[in-house]
């Protein structure tokens, strides 16, 4: 059985499958059940200084096999009320990563300090929500601001800090480098991709907020490209996010450079039971590939086998059939 344990910037996880921020993360009970179902850990909904109701509905539009479009508007109960939810999740045993959003380095630091007191194992900075005015990718698209915010948070708390990067940029690697310069301990990539759906009959955007963010199968290739580019640019670990719904998807991210992954949209339907399913499939698939430890294959696709051995197995192990050439 392949070893799925992960060390994520000093945080030990039983497996690399994390609940993505904003999915099943508003209540402690939901986070606890994600962990009970097999997740390696959970990321909270992004929490701000004050309570926010978010945008009016429609906040989510299903786009068939392509994925989901959403603009929730960062609804959250605020940092004063939210710690009670973290308590519930932690009581269930889950390693909780606290996601926060704010507008300025100072506000980020204050929020981080408060979040750090709740017993979370790490912080994730939402620098990437594509549709909240004054937050998210509106600030996270500028490398200098990313660096400043990360530095401010890293100076304020004693926990690993993950910077969550937007794909809505010409240069994801540049944003990741900025976060690394600021002292980030890991990069999370990606958040949703800026997107829109229009209702033709009514001649208006479907989401109440107009623009939203695309998640699910459509963005898996986009997330992979970001992780790929970031892996070549930074030394710190990467958490891959975007369209992951199977062990195969998780492995693509692993080979592109992700040390852990987050799962969001794919939970719609199977629910958190998906974590258990993927964890089992992952072990089996790693065994079949001849990889005994998940962590041993991080970024492996960046050094593909050259020349004639390319068609040989890239991994030592059972899938390689060594037979003299020409055997019928």
């Amino acid at each position: 059985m392949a070893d799925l344990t992960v060390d994520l910037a000093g945080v030990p996880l039983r497996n690399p499958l994390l609940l993505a921020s904003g999915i099943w993360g508003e209540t402690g009970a939901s986070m606890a059940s994600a962990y009970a179902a097999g997740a390696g850990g959970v990321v909270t909904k992004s929490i701000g200084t004050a309570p926010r109701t978010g945008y009016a509905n429609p906040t989510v539009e299903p786009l068939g096999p392509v994925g989901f479009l959403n603009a929730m508007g960062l609804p959250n109960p605020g940092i004063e009320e939210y710690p009670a939810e973290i308590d519930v999740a932690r009581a269930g045993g889950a390693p909780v990563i606290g996601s926060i959003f704010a507008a300025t380095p100072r506000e980020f630091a204050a929020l981080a300090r408060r979040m750090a007191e709740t017993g979370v194992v790490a912080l994730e900075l939402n620098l990437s929500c594509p549709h909240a005015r004054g937050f998210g990718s509106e600030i996270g698209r500028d490398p200098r601001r990313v660096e400043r915010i990360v530095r401010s948070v890293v100076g304020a708390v004693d926990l690993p800090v993950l910077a969550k990067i937007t794909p809505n940029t010409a240069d994801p690697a540049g944003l990741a480098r900025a976060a690394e310069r600021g002292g980030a301990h890991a990069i999370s990539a990606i958040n949703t991709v800026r997107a829109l759906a229009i209702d033709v009959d009514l001649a208006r955007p479907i989401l109440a907020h107009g623009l939203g963010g695309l998640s699910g199968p459509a963005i898996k290739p986009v997330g992979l490209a970001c992780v790929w580019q970031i892996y070549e640019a930074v030394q710190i670990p990467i958490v891959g996010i975007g369209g992951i719904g199977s062990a195969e998807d998780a492995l693509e991210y692993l080979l592109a450079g992700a040390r852990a992954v987050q799962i969001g949209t794919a939970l719609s339907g199977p629910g958190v039971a998906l974590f258990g399913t993927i964890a089992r499939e992952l072990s089996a698939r790693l065994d079949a590939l001849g990889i005994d430890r998940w962590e041993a294959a991080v970024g492996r696709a960046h050094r593909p086998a050259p020349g004639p051995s390319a068609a040989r197995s890239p991994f030592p192990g059972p899938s390689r059939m060594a037979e003299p050439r020409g055997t019928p």
Partner: protein
Amino acid sequence: MTPPSRTIVPIEAVTPETPSTVTLRFPWTAGARPGQFVMVWIPGEDELPMSLSYPEGPLGGVTVKAMGETSRKIQDLRRGDRIGIRGPYGTPFDLTPHRVLIVAGGSGAAVLAPAAEAARREGHSVDVALGAVTAGELLFRERFERMGARVEVATDDGSEGTRGYVTPVADRLLEGNPYDALWTCGPEVMMRRVADRAERAHVPVICSVERQMKCALGLCDACALGPYHVCVDGPLLPWERLKDLEEFGRSYRDPAGRRKAYGPGRP
């Protein structure tokens, strides 16, 4: 895994049911079953979860009580106006029980009337305890009667039937009759009381539960109720799952996810 997509439908009929309630009918055949709900988009306003009071096509329908801003605006829609429908979502009623007691408070009859109809079509017996603030607000009373259900009513103001809450009516029916299922929808304090009594009478209870909804797809956690998501695990939930949840009947979450205690007078 592909969820049902949104369709824009013209409203074909607007029927006032009570002074505070209106039924919208629209062409829509999605194979929905009693107990399921849809997300109803009022363009430019909001999108609300609504149980299907007419789940089967060719004309689907929802019955909406004026509560807050949007549900009040819905009362003003007219024939030809277009709304968006996505769904159906959630769990339908299990129609195997032979003797069903229905306990409906306020707009709760919206989801229970089509369920009762389906049970009657299967040849089962249906008794209904129907409550409202006043006689004119007794929702779907005639519809229940037309399908051959026994209907007993209660009104807060005593303008018809028993004065006061519907719970004593339900208790009385439970005592005198051997039911094999109780289906209820209404204020959670009411459902808690009713279910408690039914449990003692060994009658399995199904509650139709309402919570804040955003995605209706089991993603956003807005509808979390203990470990359940009302949009996927519900809206019908058996009493065994609910009774130990300290939230049920006591608190709900607002759109920010804050826990709020149920005030007097609201579900």
